[in-house]
Every structure is written in C-alpha cells, then in structure tokens.
C-alpha cells in the first residue's frame, strides 16, 4: 500500500516533508557535530601536537605516541586496567546470574529483594567511593574490626599496592551486580516455561535445566551485560580518583588508563600527550568489543 502522504502529494510536498525532516533532526545533529564529531577529529589532531598552557597547538608528528609507548606508566596503567576488568567483569556477571536465578525461582518478596539489590546502581559513584574508603580505613575501618573477630589482623587496604586494586575491584563488583541482575532477570523471565516443562517430563533436574535451558536461552542478555561491563570496566575512574589519594603508596599500582588520561590532560596540562592516551583507550575498547562480537557467534544463541 502506498502511504497516504505520497498519494496526496507530488514532489513539492515531498520536498516540504524533507525540510520537516531536517528541522526535526537539526538540533541533535548540530549539537553532536559541534560537541562530539568535531572534538573527535580535533582530539586525533591534538594527539600529533604539543598543546601548551594557552592551548596553542604545534604539530610534532608521532612524538606523543613515541613517548607514550616508551614510558613505563602506560604499561603499568594498562596492566592495572586489565587486572581491574579481569577481577570485576567475570565475577560481577557470575554473581548477577546467581542472584537473578535465585530471585527467578519464585522467591517470595522477589520485587522487594530486586529493589534492594538495585540500590548501588542508582547511587552516585563519588558517594559510594567515600563510604567504602571509610569502611576500608586502616585505623578505624569497620572491615578491620570485623576481621578482628575472626582473629585476622587488619591492613591498610587502600594504601598497600598488594591490596588496593583488589579493594577497588570489590567496590566495582558491588556496584555492578544489581544492574546486571535486573537485565538478566528480565531475560530469564522471557524464557518460555514450556522448555522447562518438556525437560521435566524427560526427568531433567534443576541444575541440568539451568545449564541446558537457562544459560543458552539467556546468552543474548549475558552478551549484552558482558559488552557493557567490559566497556565501563575499561573506563574505570570515579572510584579510583575518590578512593586512592595522591599520597597513597598504592597510587601507581591503581592508576587506570582513564586516570592517566585525566592527570595528564587536566592536572599536568599535557593535553597533546593526553589526547594520544585517549586514542589508545579508544583502540583497546574497540578491539575488545570487536573480539566479543566475533566470539559471540560461538556461544550466543538467538531464537
């Protein structure tokens, strides 16, 4: 069927309608062009420049990249960021699946529990970081007091390079479980009960059902959660900035890539160098996202 519009109109009307189209998309398109597309290009240009305190840029070719790849800082920050991702993403998703599965088993008070689990997801990361910093406090922190009950001696968690990143990662996991759980629970509730009924007739137990029905049927949601968790994990900043002070002995062993970017861009004023770091972050995230999209063909099942 032809649309009412084209029946009524000739090319003059189509032109007028196209004008309406441009009118509707103009604010977003112009806004994104000015504040995102142009900055994207300028940032690439800056990464080949030295940008001084007065923001005058002079072209220096690949010097920023050369300096970046020859500094230990970059490799240290890359390692820290990868470790953070490795600590938070698998465990954060595993716990989210666990909680979602438990809530999905017709637990009474399901929606109240779901709300409580979701609380960290709505809370300001800066505030979360302050609270955890207090919990981890080496002298008066409640964590050390709690451990004392079991005869374990406390530590200065955020001030020791052996524990600081793990402590931050725990906060990362704590923050992400509820959010991921809500997405996974919605996915589980979308699985047709007929699969489970059929499996029960065949005599399958609860665990068999979980691994052979729930997990495969849930794989698109798991994939979504995996991608978003990876992307935000690689960009960890707020909690580290708030929890690890400049004087902390764990400062270097927790500096993430975005932290490295921020310090250079806005603390030290090395904007050209920082631009190169941001391009490096972009490439890493892009690579990991692409790898996931290729790998998903092996394990994600779409109906």
């Amino acid at each position: 069927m032809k649309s009412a519009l084209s029946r009524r109109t000739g090319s003059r009307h189509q032109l007028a309608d196209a004008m309406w189209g441009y009118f509707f998309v103009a604010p977003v398109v112009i806004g994104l062009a000015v504040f995102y597309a142009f900055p994207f290009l300028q940032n690439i240009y800056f990464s080949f420049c030295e940008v001084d305190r007065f923001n005058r840029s002079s072209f220096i070719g690949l010097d920023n990249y050369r300096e970046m790849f020859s500094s230990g800082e970059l490799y240290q920050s890359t390692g820290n960021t990868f470790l953070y991702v490795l600590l938070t993403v698998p465990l954060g998703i595993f716990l989210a699946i666990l909680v979602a599965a438990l809530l999905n088993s017709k637990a009474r008070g399901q929606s109240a529990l779901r709300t409580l689990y979701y609380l960290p997801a709505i809370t300001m990361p800066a505030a979360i970081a302050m609270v955890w910093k207090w919990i981890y406090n080496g002298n008066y922190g409640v964590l050390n007091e709690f451990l004392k009950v079991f005869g374990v001696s406390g530590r200065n968690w955020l001030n020791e390079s052996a524990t600081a990143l793990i402590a931050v990662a725990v906060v990362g996991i704590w923050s992400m479980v509820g959010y991921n759980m809500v997405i996974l629970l919605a996915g589980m509730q979308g699985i047709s009960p007929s699969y489970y009924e059929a499996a029960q007739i065949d005599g399958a137990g609860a665990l068999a059902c979980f691994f052979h029905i729930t997990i495969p049927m849930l794989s698109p949601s798991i994939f979504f959660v995996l991608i978003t968790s990876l992307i935000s994990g690689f960009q960890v900043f707020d909690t580290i900035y708030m929890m690890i002070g400049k004087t902390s002995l764990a400062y270097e062993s927790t500096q993430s890539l975005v932290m490295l970017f921020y310090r250079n861009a806005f603390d030290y004023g090395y904007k050209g160098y920082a631009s190169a770091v941001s391009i490096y972050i972009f490439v890493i995230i892009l690579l990991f996202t692409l790898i996931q999209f290729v790998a998903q063909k092996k394990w994600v099942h779409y109906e």
Partner: protein
Amino acid sequence: MSNGRRTSRVVLYIVLCLGVLLTVFPFIWMVLTSFKLDGEAVQVPPTILPQHPSLQAYQQVFDVIPFRAVLLNSVISTVLIVLGQVLFCTMAAYGFARIKFPGRQLIFILVLSVLMVPSQIFLIPQYLIIQKLHLLDTMGGLVLPSLFSAFGTFLLRQFFLSIPAEMEEAAILDGANRWQIFTKVMVPLVQPGIVTLVIFTAKYGWNNFMWPLIITTTPSKMTLGPALSTLSGVHVNNYPAQMAGAVLAVIPMLILFIVFQKQFIEGVAHAGVKG
C-alpha cells in the same frame, strides 16, 4: 513439599538475604556514621549505633562547602540536561524514524557512531570549546555538551518505529502539519520511551563526575560529585562529616528511585532485552 525441597528453599533464602545484607550494609554504615560525633567514629572498638545521635556532622558539611548552592547546582543541571535531551532527542528520533529525507540513513549512522567512542576522546576539545565560550565555572558549561545525546535518539527511535503507520496517516489526511502530528499524536504514544529516557538521563546528570570536576573550580559553582571530593579533602579525618555529605548526595536520587522504582527497573530490563 518434600524435605529436600524445603531445605533447598531455606538455603535459597539464606543466600539471598546474605547478598542483600552485603549490598545494603555500606548504606547503613554511612547513615549510622553520619549521626555520630567525630570522636565516637574513631573509637576502638567502634560503636554500632550512635551513642549520642547528633546532627553535628551535617552542620559541618554546610560550614565547609556551600552545600545549598551545590545541591541547587546539581538539581538545576540535572533538570536542564533532562529537559534538553527529552526535547531534542524526541524530535530527532521522530525525524529519523518517520520522515524520509535525503541523507537520512547516513546521518543516522554518523549519530550512532558517537555511541562507539569512549567519552574521554571528546573531553579536551569540549573543554576548550567551553573555555572559548567563556562558560568555564558556569551552569551553561556544566550542561551544554550533555543536552545532545546519541543514546537518547537511538532509544526513542526504537519506540517511534514500533507505532503503526495508520496513526500518523489519519492525522496527515486531516491536514495536520508535521509539528502538530508530532506533538498531538506521536509524543503521547511514545510516553513510556520518554519516561525511560528521563530516568536514564536524570541518573546520568546527577551522578556525573568527571565533567563537572573539570569544568568547575569555585566551590559554589560545583555539583555534588566534585563537592564531595572537596569535602573529603578538607575533612580528611572527620568521617561523620564525610558520611553526612554522602548521605545528602544520595538521598534525592534515592527518593526518585523509590517513587519511580518500576520505571527505573523496567527501563533497564527493557534495554537489555532489546539489546
């Protein structure tokens, strides 16, 4: 119910409640500490309930940072970002979903490509633009780049696409122009999408940290995130004051969450299912 099933039920509840306890404990500890005097907070062994419940810590927060102004900045910037995104993204989403114009496909792909790029890439040039406009340390500088969103446009476009064409064609035959169709017919139909966008954007605007940290330097121009950072710098060892600041920063979003629980959770759940 068999014995085995009853035991597994009990285990289920124990695990779930333990998880809830771990999730909620930091909030409880935050609130309890905020009502203690700063001497009591560093007592060893610690007290659980405040021995002399006091609002002193809250008073100290207001003494150190211009908290009223900061709170107001957070509210105003969040409201402006939400309004801007709802207006501009709804318009653009309608244009991309419902009107044919040359270059539509290409422009839409360009809009989507913004979503692929981590936000750090834009920060330095955005900062320089705001500086050039003399908007550093102002409300305009805080909100300007966030008024336009590729995510919001994409989200609402999905909603517009799911509306049957007949709804619109009837209005066109009645001689309504595009703007009338948009405001009278289409916007009411995508209301659930707009609610989802409002919630996503409010959360983003309220909790945003790095941008306000970069843009604002005067305490009275800050939003809550950077102000908390200042607070923990000034009151290094005054833990009740730090926790009081955190409580004040968390409560407005918490109230919003309690009122709009269903929309908060369903919006996120929906995003996951649709991919």
